[in-house]
């Protein structure tokens, strides 16, 4: 009996050590909520120029990309590449912005910059026709498939109310830095898609979210791994018929950008920029309640730049 118990115990011990060795670097990822970054502003809003120029100015005012990316770190950039449409249709993040972010990461000494999205339309066509595949390759990043289940690892979301576990893309779990690059646009089920909604593209089973109170699930997932930086592209903005849009007639050229480490604050600001009351977007309220961030912009130090 003793011998058997010993074997059992050592097996269990072996398993836990093995698990730690296997997923140790992922544990590190959860701990990487860096409040201590010492940034001069909570949120930067900028308008009036091309996406790459605006990003350069905005990130500079936050102290530069080096505040976020340290030499030899791996970075995952998550734009919205959901649809097989060209950049002017405003269905996907502007390729110039994605390109500039990757360049800045590489200049800060990043080891690798990965880009992916779990797309809605056929992924290879989305990657190509959004212009993002070419932009990533130009800037020296790596564009990675996101539409195969093998890339997704099961995780728990302990603070989630409806969404308590999900399968998340392995690069989100293993990369040192996570930069979320959504596009601001209208959306059927949630009214607006911005930072938090963009994270739906890093999980495998989106149908579960739709079946189980979409807005709550979006807020639930936002409690998991927070992006280190959110860059909201509001250069071309789809004002209606989102998230796919019907034609260029749906698009307004707003030439704006919002940057923040706080998803709730940035989504609140972006909703106002869009011309909507943030209180009408349920997931912003849910996320605020869960403590993901702050929707009270009055308490924040906001830097506004008009070029």
């Amino acid at each position, binding site marked *: 009996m003793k011998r058997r118990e010993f074997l059992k115990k050592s097996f269990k011990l072996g398993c836990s050590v093995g698990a730690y060795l296997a997923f140790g670097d992922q544990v590190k990822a959860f701990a990487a909520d860096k409040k201590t970054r010492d940034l001069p502003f909570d949120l930067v*809003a900028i*308008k*009036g120029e091309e996406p790459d120029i605006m990003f350069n100015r905005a990130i500079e005012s936050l102290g530069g990309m080096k505040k976020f990316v340290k030499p030899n770190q791996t970075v995952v950039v998550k734009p919205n590449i959901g649809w*097989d*449409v060209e950049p002017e249709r405003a269905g996907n993040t502007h390729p110039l912005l994605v390109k500039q972010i990757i360049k800045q990461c590489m200049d800060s000494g990043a080891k*690798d910059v*990965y880009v992916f999205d779990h797309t*809605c*339309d*056929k992924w*290879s*066509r989305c990657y190509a*026709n959004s212009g993002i595949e070419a932009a990533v390759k130009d800037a020296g990043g*790596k*564009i*990675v*498939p996101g*539409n*195969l289940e093998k890339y997704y690892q099961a995780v728990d979301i302990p603070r989630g109310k409806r969404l308590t576990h999900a399968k998340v893309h392995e690069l989100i779990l293993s990369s040192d830095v996570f930069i979320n690059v959504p596009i601001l646009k209208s*959306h*059927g*089920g*949630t009214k607006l898609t911005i930072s938090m909604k963009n994270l739906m593209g890093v999980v495998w089973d*989106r*149908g*579960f*979210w*739709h*079946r*189980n*109170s*979409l*807005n*709550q699930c979006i807020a639930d997932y936002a409690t998991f791994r927070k992006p280190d930086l959110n860059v909201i592209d509001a250069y071309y903005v789809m*004002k*209606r*018929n989102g*998230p*796919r849009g*019907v*034609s260029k*007639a*749906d*698009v*307004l*050229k*707003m*030439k704006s950008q919002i940057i923040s480490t706080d998803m709730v604050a940035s989504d*609140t*600001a972006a909703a*106002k*920029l869009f*011309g909507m009351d943030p209180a009408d977007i*349920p997931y912003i309220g849910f996320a605020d309640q869960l403590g993901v961030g702050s929707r009270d*912009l009055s308490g924040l130090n*906001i830097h*506004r730049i*008009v070029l």
Partner: protein
Amino acid sequence: MKLKILKKVRVVVSLTFFFAVASLFLDFNFSLPENGYDFVAYLQFIPSLLKFSLFTSLATAGFIFVILFTLMFGRVYCSFLCPLGCLQDIFAYISKKINKKEYLYSLSHLKTRYGLLITVVFTYFSGSIIGLILLDPYSNFGRILTHIAAPVVIGINNSLVSALEKINLYSIYPVELKGTNLSPFFFSMTVLGLILWMSLKYGRLYCNTICPVGTFLGFLSRYSLFKIKFNLSDCIKCKACERVCKSGCIDLNTQKIDFSRCVACYNCFNVCPVSGIEYQWIFQESKEQAFKDKGKRDFIIQTAAFLLTFPFSAGGVEKQRKFYKKSTVPVVRKTGITPPGSLSLKNFLNKCTACHLCVSICPAGVLQPSFLEYGLLGIMQPRMDYKISFCNYNCVACSRVCPSGAILKQDREEKKLIQLGKVKFIQENCVVYTQRTDCGACAEHCPTKAVRLVLNKKIDKRAPQIDESICVGCGACEFACPTKPHKAIYVENNPVHLKAKKPKENKITEDVDLKKIFPF
């Protein structure tokens, strides 16, 4: 002696066509040029014939060239152009290398050959293409590629992808294998097995017993202007030609050649040490005794007998075409949905030989072989499977490759207005009504906003509202709908495809003041 070069030419041409057709089916990354690749399928006999019957033009007249070749030199098609023929030659070549295989003259299987040909023709004119689906050599080759070769190639590609990812390289993309289709897989395995066995053992026996194209061209080659015959004055009766004849149509004992079975491989020219076998113009004074008319007479008698016994009930085929309904599924579609450019259910079902080229190249993977959705007689003909995927709004891939006229070439903008079917909403299944939570997955995916969310004051939620007039039937809403096990929104087929209305475009007039400070 000059004739010896013919075999080399044949090998080069047939391998070219073999690999060209194969590359078409295995083009996962869609890297082949959009135009100019049509020549590959242009000369494929059955697809060309079907397309010609829809559009009489030079651009679809490939099969006429095949007939002309045949009336000149015999069944050149079988050895030069037919990819299934080339596959058999490859097997036979291997068999020859391993076993030192030699062939012998064999008797013709007249009854089987003409019986099958007549069945195919008869069923076709009775309204069913099933004979061609099962027996067209090009389509069989296509299915072997799609269901046996492609998964192997994809598997190799994906293993390579995984290996490269281990060393942090993402230079090649993995390919998703969408849908598992057992019926075409087993059918293709059976055909491949049959062909393998026949070609290893008897050379081109398949082409001279089962293939209806072979039989038809064989029939024509009885009237060819040039035929391969013995030159009795030079022949030394060494039997070299008979031993290499994959068709078993050279009989040295009687020094006759059954030219209707000759596949024009020219192996005989290659081995003849003298000039004992050659092409002879039929008006030339024959160096060989004329064929006795026995074969012809047999054929006529057998045809008559066959026609008399053929079950005429086959005439009611059109009515028997029932569409499979699973009683437990509330989403009951009346019919399978045909791809954009197929014009109508009738045109598609009458022209498609289920070669599965469209299935192979569909980037979205929405085109899948049917099982019984078109009825038993439409087995394996592709349909739009919205469980697996949906039709990409901007894509016209299938229409540009279909060789048989089942799917016609479409301009990208025209295709965006083709209405395959109409959206139907089942309120009882929709989560917005059953759970009272936001969803909108259907409206999200809809490219035209035929499904949009409109506030329903009764439940105080934004719920799907449909507009059939601008629906293109792409199935994006049905695919995206998260409800289980039955969808709350689906597409019902249009038996004849219609033109959808263009979605309204009102330009956003809002002014953007770039100098104005932010509203926060």
